[in-house]
Each structure stands twice: as C-alpha cells, then as structure tokens.
C-alpha cells in the first residue's frame, strides 16, 4: 500500500503523464529511493521555501568546501596549479583519506572575509581552475582513486581574460573528462550550483545535494534581468525555475538529498559534515563494487536520459 509521500510523488509525476519521460525506464527502481527522500519533505516547496533555499545556499556562514575537507578527509594534501599558467584559488583540488580510502577532491571554494573572497574570486573559477580540475581527475583515474567533487559557485567567472582563455571550452572539457573516468565519482552540491561553472565538475555516478543547496541553469537575478528586466524580481524567477533540492530530485537531476542540521548547515557545521560524509560514503559503497566499464556506461546512460520531451 503506497505511502502518502509516494502518492504525493505519483501525483507530481502524473503532471508529466502526457509527455514521454526520458528517464521513465528507470522510474520503478528509483521510486523507492525517491520515496525515502520524500518522507523527509513537507509537501511541494512553496515560492517562499524556494527563496529560503536560495538564501541559505548563499548564507555567509555556510560551510565551504575546505570546511568540509578538514572535517571529512584525513592527511589532506592540496594539489596546486594547472601546469600551464596559473593556480586558480576559486577551485581547490587535492588528495585525502575518506573513511580509510584515498580519494581525489575537487571543489569550488568561496572566501569568508573580504581578503579571502578576493583571493578565491567569490568561488568563480577561470578556465585555469577547470584545467586544474581536469589534471586532478586524470590523477584519480591513473591511481584508481574515487573522485569526490563539491559544487559551490555562483558560476564560472564572466571576465574578458576568462573568455580569452577559453571559459566555454574549459567547462566542456571538464565535463568530458568526468564522462571518461573509470573510477567511482560522487558530486555534492553544497551551496550554489550555478550553471555551467557548476555542472563542469558535477558529471558523476552519484550526484548528492544538500537540503538547502540550489542547482540552476541561471542565477535568479540573471533570469529576472532577462525575463522581467529587473534583477529585483529574483524571487519570482526562482519560483519559476525551481532550483531547490526537492525539484532537482524530482526531475532526476540529482540522486539523493543530504539532510542538514535544523536551520541550515551553518548552524552546526560539524553535524552537516557528518551527514555529508555519511552520504558520500554510502554513495561510494554503492558504486565501488561495479565494474569500471559498466559504471562509466551507466553514468553516461543516466545523462542520456535527462530531459522531458513531447511529440507533435
């Protein structure tokens, strides 16, 4: 007998009834997992709840990648530089032990105070950052280390030099590198998952998303500026394109929602790290046993299914 959450889920899915759901083939298997997740949620997020996610995802005290690294990874050693031009501090890469195994970490990094924000360019990477990430991914693959990424960026940096250095191509190639990896990969959206700059490091076997993180094709302000010609309409825009975790889960874009402490991750970073670690370890244990070739095929098949189509 279906639970209330499952009924709610079925109702939501029924909205798609007239369309061919690309990922439909996997739906029955996924239903159980979705159900588990939905039990923790209180109904369809309202416009206010979505906006609260936007605010929490950007909260100035929210834990950043390195806050989790120091709580989750042992013996962490940071890898620097793209071996060509620069070491982009908006994106950190390194190796550490997670629950006994060595993993490679790639994550955006924001700054806490003005000085560090400038150094980290507000978490907005240049192409050099993505090239450093590609280098770290290659190292992971060479040594069989799983890859864990942490996504937390308003977006890739939109600057003259960034364009000249090939921002679009770098983001495309970072995704391609992740599509090629033989090792297990887990991506975690831990704050702002802003557009191409986010998905560049989020093409993974399992994509996790914290309860109050956002993941979106455009920032609310950017969307509002284009559609309403008024960045102040950001709240309305967010309600329209729904960057919150429940909607991302429902659309099959992420594989699981990671709970946060009451009030948001910043209220208790230790607990937040503990929950995130548990989710990553669980996700890894699911995929580590797979044959590498099969794992890669499934990863690509997952993205192959993304999207919703109608027919003329």
């Amino acid at each position: 007998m279906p639970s209330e959450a499952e009924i709610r889920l079925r109702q939501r899915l029924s909205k798609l009834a007239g369309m061919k759901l690309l990922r439909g083939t996997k739906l029955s298997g996924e239903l159980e997992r979705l159900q588990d997740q939905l039990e923790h949620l209180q109904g369809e997020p309202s416009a206010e709840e979505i906006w609260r996610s936007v605010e929490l995802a950007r909260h100035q005290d929210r834990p950043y990648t390195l806050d989790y690294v120091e709580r989750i990874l042992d013996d962490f050693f940071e890898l620097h530089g793209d071996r060509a031009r620069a070491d982009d501090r908006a994106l950190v890469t390194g190796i550490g032990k997670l629950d006994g195994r060595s993993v490679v970490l790639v994550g955006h990094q924001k700054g806490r105070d003005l000085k560090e924000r400038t150094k980290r360019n507000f978490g907005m990477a240049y192409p050099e950052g993505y090239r450093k990430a590609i280098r770290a991914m290659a190292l992971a693959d060479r040594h069989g280390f799983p890859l864990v990424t942490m996504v937390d960026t308003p977006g890739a940096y939109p600057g003259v030099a960034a364009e000249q250095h090939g921002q679009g191509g770098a983001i495309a190639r970072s995704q391609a590198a992740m599509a090629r990896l033989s090792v297990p990969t887990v991506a975690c959206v831990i704050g702002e998952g802003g557009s191409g700059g986010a998905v560049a490091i989020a093409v993974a076997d399992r994509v996790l998303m914290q309860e109050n993180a956002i993941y979106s094709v455009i920032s609310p302000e950017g969307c509002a500026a284009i559609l309403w010609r008024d960045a102040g309409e950001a709240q309305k825009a967010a309600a329209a394109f729904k960057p919150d975790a429940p909607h991302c889960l429902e659309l099959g874009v992420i594989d699981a929602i990671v709970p946060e402490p009451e009030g948001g991750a910043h209220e208790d970073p230790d607990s937040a790290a503990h929950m995130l670690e548990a989710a990553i370890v669980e996700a890894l244990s699911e995929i580590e046993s797979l044959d590498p070739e099969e794992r890669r095929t499934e990863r690509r098949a997952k993205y192959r299914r993304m999207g919703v189509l109608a027919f003329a």
Partner: protein
Amino acid sequence: MASEQGRVDVSVESKQAPDAVPAKSHPNTCPGCGSHYRDDELERTLRVCPQCGHHFPVGARDRIEQLADPESFVEEDEDLRSADVLGFFDLRPYTERLAEAEIETGLGDAIVAGSASIENEPCRLAVMDFAFMGGSMGSVVGEKFVRACERAAENRVPLVSIAASGGARMQEGILALMQLPKTVCAIEDLHEAKGALFSVLTHPTTGGVLASFASLGDVVLAEPGALMSFAGPRVVAQTTREKLPDDFGLAESNYRFGHIDAIVPRDELRPTLGRLLRLFGAEQ
C-alpha cells in the same frame, strides 16, 4: 554583480525576452556598411554582404540547402517537441512562447537534424536556428543532437554540427543545464566509436552550447565575425566594469587565442567540410 555568468548578453537573447527590443533596422540592411538588399539578392550570395563581407544570419533550412548536396538531406526526429515540465510562466506561459516560435519559424524547436551528403561524402547534420527562441538549448535540442551522434556512430559517418545559440533555455530550468553533460557524454560515446564531430560556430554561439558540444569538435570552425563567448559582452561589462576589447568574444579573437582551427567564410564552408569529410570519412 556576478550573478549572470553562464548567460548570454540580453541583446543576443532578445528573441527570448518578453519585450524584445524593436529591431533597429531592417534585417536585410547590412550592419557592416549600411547597404540594403532584396531577399533574392542575399540568397544568391549565401546571405553575405557583397560590399563588406558581413555574414547575415542563416536559418537552419537555408543552411542545410547551402551545405548539403541537392536532395540529399533527410530530416529525422521532426516530431520532437519541448514539454513545459516546470509550468514555467513569466509574462506569458512557456507553452505559448513555444507555439509562437513554431508558427514564426516553421520549426519544431531550435535544431534541425538528419542525414545528408556534402560533396558526395555521407554525413549527419545537426543545424541550429537562432530564430527559434534565440537558439536556446532545452531537452529537444539536447535529444536531437544526441540522436545525431548516435546515428553518426552507427553509420560510421562524421557529424557536422552548426551552432547558433544564446545558451541554455531557462524556461526548462535545471533540465536545460543537464543538456550540457548529456551532449558531452554523447560526444564521448561517438569518439569511442571512432566517429568524428566537426563543429561550426556561427553568430552567436554562447553560454551552454559553447560550454558543451560546440567546443568539442575534432575540428572547430567559425564564421567571420561570429560572437562566441561563454558570458555575453553585456554581462562581462556589467560584472567586471572593464572596457571590453573591440573584438571581444569574436571568432577572430578566439582564433588568436587558440580556440578554433579556422575562420571559414561562408562560401568556403561547403568545400572545407567536403575536405574534412574526405579526411575523416568512412572510406578511411
């Protein structure tokens, strides 16, 4: 503010904006030199200004006519349409915009795909059309591109992609963003099957399309003067308060910085693709 990166310049995306800026001039008036042409005049010159060489936009069907051998093009997946999964509503519902775009352009979405031959070399073609909602990429563009990759691999012929896009289609939300990894994964599969992708960038190719399949061609070509940037000029100017170089994001600048293999004037595009098809083609 840095909140609009990943998006295209508003002016580029005017097709997608609710209150499109009124066209400053007639579409057949050359922005390069001010000359004005009749439709049939431009048709004869492949929509290139005979005075100054300015490359006017070309729709998907016209482009296919310019490139494919006569009668060779067979369209595929023409019945695919976008779905409004988010119930997206700004000033008007997304569904209404889609219907309007279909009526205006006669296209089902911003891409036309199928099999063809160029200079007698068989290939697959995937051609975008900026007139359909600013060439924005949602589920249909992603799906049709991926199917074109798959068929190119099956048939062991190269895929020729012609991009013209303002970026990901925000009305499809996060699923539009997912078309980036979706198309990227398809190219990886194509490459593992030893298939080739020739990517041609036309004005404009920005945002999510540049940050996915358009940049991943085995060979990347661009038309003269085409804007190809991840972030649009207006967003960059607003964010950085820098004065932009005159050739910001243009094909010529991208060539200088090593991002494309060649700038190909429109009348050389067909022979260039023919040469590439001979070099990469099935008879290898």
